[in-house]
């Protein structure tokens, strides 16, 4: 059974399918946060995540005729974002950008209640991103879709073009790696700094 699509969203989609840019802009506003968060969690770079999110929406707008109106829009959009980020990560690897290059930059302050909370949040955020950065692109995407978007194995499989059993296997491997990384992190102090222009939490 597919989840029900909100009436307003269905209306925007129908209008956007006819080329109505303003209707699609409503969808952009509605989904900018989940798409951006996915891109940031995947790429760990604020400006690149923004660019990837923009590209995701452009791709979605262009390929809207391929979206099944009876299926929810969100997983379809997240699937485009995931594939786009995986491609970017592969290209990045081809450019031989090492993980070390991605570290050592200062995280700008995000709005928070106080300096102690800020420091804790930043440390926590850095820790999470370091954990994710230790995973292969598809495994990273599976973990993000599972833990931030609460997608089922089937939905993750649809988003990443994998079978349900492949998703389970990848998630298991990812969990083992994350546990190892966590333990390694406990033994070693955190690397100072993180990515530049870290976005704010919702």
């Amino acid at each position, binding site marked *: 059974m597919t989840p029900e699509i909100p009436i307003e969203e269905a209306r925007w989609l129908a209008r956007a399918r006819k080329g109505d840019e303003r209707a699609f802009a409503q969808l952009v506003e509605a989904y900018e946060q989940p798409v951006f968060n996915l891109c940031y969690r995947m790429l760990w770079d604020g400006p690149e995540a923004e660019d990837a999110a923009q590209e995701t929406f452009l791709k979605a707008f262009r390929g809207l005729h391929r979206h099944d109106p009876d299926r929810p829009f969100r997983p379809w959009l997240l699937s485009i974002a995931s594939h786009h980020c995986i491609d970017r990560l592969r290209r990045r690897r081809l450019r031989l950008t090492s993980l070390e290059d991605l570290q050592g930059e200062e995280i700008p302050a995000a709005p928070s209640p106080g300096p102690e909370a800020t420091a804790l949040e930043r440390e926590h955020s850095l820790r999470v991103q370091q954990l994710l950065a230790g995973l292969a692109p598809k495994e990273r995407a599976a973990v993000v879709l599972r833990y931030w978007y609460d997608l089922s194995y089937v939905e993750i499989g649809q988003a990443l073009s994998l079978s349900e059993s492949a998703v389970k296997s990848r998630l298991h491997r990812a969990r083992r790696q994350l546990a190892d990384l966590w333990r390694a992190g406990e033994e070693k102090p955190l690397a100072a700094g993180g990515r530049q222009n870290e976005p704010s*939490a919702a």
Partner: protein
Amino acid sequence: MNLQQPELVRQDPDLPGWAEAEAALQAAPMLSPAIGFSRRWRLHLTARRARHARRQSLWSLGLALGGALAALAVWALLGPLGSPADMAVELGLRAAAWGRGLDLLLGLADALLGALPLVLRALGGLGLLFTLGWLSALWLASLYRLSVQEIRNGG
């Protein structure tokens, strides 16, 4: 491997360090882009459309020039292509005529040159017409697709 997976998934919570890592993932917030994301998206879309329109103009110009050059090339090639064949036929006939003892060859060449060109002319003409027609249709379709067709949803 698949048969083992349910067991593997069940084992996940027992992995040392996993509970803490999972708690960290679950506590991580949903991040937002900088304010004005949808406005930037519209600007992005407008820029993309302008780029697409520029590309269409370039394609249009390129195809028009390419088509004109191809037509010129066909025009220029058709003349020279005809004359060597005529010359070859003439030479063959002369050579055959010079060889007095080669009546059989002359007869054969005569039969070939007399009979084949009729078929070849008909087939060649039809083939040439078909090829030119197909190339023109392809050129027109490309011109329409790349230079005239409306830009939909950002190109």
